[in-house]
């Protein structure tokens, strides 16, 4: 959609390792402004590893990652903090601070980075929580909320400063279809109205087909990207059987043969 623009996130020749285990090899990836990119792939293929590298939590064994031109593989760089201000992350488990109420969780980055007075912060937090349907839960502790509510509160916190780029790790995993649909709708509305670039890790075919503009698919044995593009095209036309299996929700061929006999 906006291919003409320079990429917001650039990954070049990324090699990711844990100790001596190479998880990802030679990853080249561009994320363009305002797009919703879904990273998909079977379990253990390195999706979360890629995400952790993209946000600077892990350092690449080799290669370069830049966010808006800022190299984030160097934590000591002066502008590293600037890069962090451009991103928001929704962690898989929410990662809300258990000792703070929901409102305090969302207010934390706002108080840290703006000069708003406390009443304005409270109003803003209320607005944000309301936009994720958590109005009235300001004073609850994370331990008092259900899984879906924690996800939504964490989304509100990730959006606290309206980052340019939002990383979402499994935003709808473990949620009921209604709440999943609401979160998908919310993601689309935020992307559309504020132009937030999104990188979503997901297994949900709903997100892949209804939300994502573009997908990349990782594979464990290839240790890299095996397919990328429009999900509908890939489902219909991909030459790679692994990709077709994923989109058509089939068990792997070896298992299917085994079960038939």
């Amino acid at each position, binding site marked *: 959609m*906006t291919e003409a*623009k320079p990429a*917001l996130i650039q990954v070049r020749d990324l090699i990711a390792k844990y100790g001596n285990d190479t998880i990802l090899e030679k990853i080249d990836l561009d994320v363009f*402004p*305002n797009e919703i990119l879904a990273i998909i792939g079977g379990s253990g293929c390195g999706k979360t590893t890629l995400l952790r590298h993209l946000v600077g939590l892990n350092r690449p064994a080799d290669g370069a990652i830049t966010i808006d031109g800022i190299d984030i593989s160097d934590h000591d760089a002066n502008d590293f903090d600037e890069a962090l201000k451009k991103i928001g992350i929704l962690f898989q488990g929410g990662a809300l601070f*258990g*000792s703070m109420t929901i409102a305090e969780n969302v207010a934390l980055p*706002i108080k840290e*980075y*703006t*000069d*708003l*007075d406390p009443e*304005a912060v409270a*109003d*803003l937090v*209320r*607005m*944000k*929580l*309301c*936009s994720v349907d958590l*109005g*009235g839960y*300001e*004073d609850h*502790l*994370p*331990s008092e909320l259900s899984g879906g509510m924690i996800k939504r509160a964490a989304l509100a916190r990730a959006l606290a*400063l*309206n980052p*340019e780029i939002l990383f979402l790790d499994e935003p709808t995993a473990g949620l009921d279809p209604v709440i999943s649909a609401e979160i998908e709708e919310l993601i689309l*509305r*935020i992307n*559309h*109205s*504020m*132009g*937030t*670039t999104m990188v979503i890790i997901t297994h949900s075919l709903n997100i892949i087909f209804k939300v994502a503009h573009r997908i990349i698919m990782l594979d464990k044995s290839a240790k890299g990207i095996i397919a990328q593009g429009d999900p509908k095209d890939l489902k219909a036309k991909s030459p790679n059987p692994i990709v077709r299996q994923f989109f058509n929700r089939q068990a792997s061929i070896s298992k299917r043969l085994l079960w038939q006999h």
Partner: protein
Amino acid sequence: MPGTLPDAPASYNLVTSADGAMGIQFIGRIDHHRAAALIKALKKEVSTRKPVKVTVDLNRVTYIDDFGVLVLSELRNILGHRDIPFNLIQPPPRAGEVLALFNFDSPDACRHVEPKERDNFVVRLGDGFFHHLYHIRYLVSFLGSAALCMLHVVMHPKSLRMNDTLLLMQKTGVDAVPIVGMISFLLGLIMAFVSSIQLEQFGASIYVASLVALAMVSELGPIMTAIVVAGRSGSAFAAEIGTMRISDEVDALFTMGISPTLFLVVPRIIAAIIVVPLLTLFADLFAIFGGLVISVTMLDLTISTYISQTIKSLDFFEFSWGLMKSVIFAALIAWIGCLRGFQVRGGASQVGNAATSAVVSGIFLIILFDSIFAVIRSYW
């Protein structure tokens, strides 16, 4: 598109007409960088110019997010307090979407729920009482279930998780030998040194050996060892079980039909009961060695007189009394550590509280039971 263009930071144009109407046209990017300053500036404009009517135009805004919505709603609130009508010119579609996303038009759609009224004194007192009652009930039931499971293990030794117990014995006992040895050695040095100053005046320096041996074997050895173990292992038990609790691992055990007490508590109690007396023996030996070092270097006693005086002053009863106490202390430390772990509810901070509480209540119980033993012994 917004978000990536180098938008100008937000500013605004003011137009005031003769009839007192004020038009505010926002320009550029309204986000968290500028929201606070904008709110402040607008408050000032309103209070100095005292308009009778305010019209806001968003058509030159390049980017707006909920911080922008906040600016608008704060402006509307200020005007509302002064009964000045607020009017928003049809916003451009994208800004309109943001306004809708954050319910700008119906701020009451999501009003803050009124905080619960604080209960009165009597209700809170009753609540506190029942809370403590519940606490005591849990304590007793946990004690009972630990005792029953211990009995079960005695009847069916195979149900004990042997590998866990051995590992816990290593963590609680073997790994604690250096610190226990160090502390008791220094304690022996101190006791011998301090007592020698007094005893030497009476020419009774030989009794330094008896003093160190008796004090250590019957009193200080068990207590010091128990306190070190409470700090090292009692807190570890509480933190480990507490973390298992908040990650539902304890519930998983329960639903598999495995008694969490049998699985988690019994190995810890047994490991502690076995290794803490051994640690106490080590502590006694190291302290006697510490006393020996002082006596030989500073009091002109020979090694053999010191050792023979030590053996003479101890009897089997002293030894078994000290070891029996350390067995009880061990059971208390492990039990309270596990109890605090099982009481964890909520999140990470509760695990920290449980670890703290395990050490504090562990040390309290050690001292309490030691004084009970002292009373029993004096009326023996």
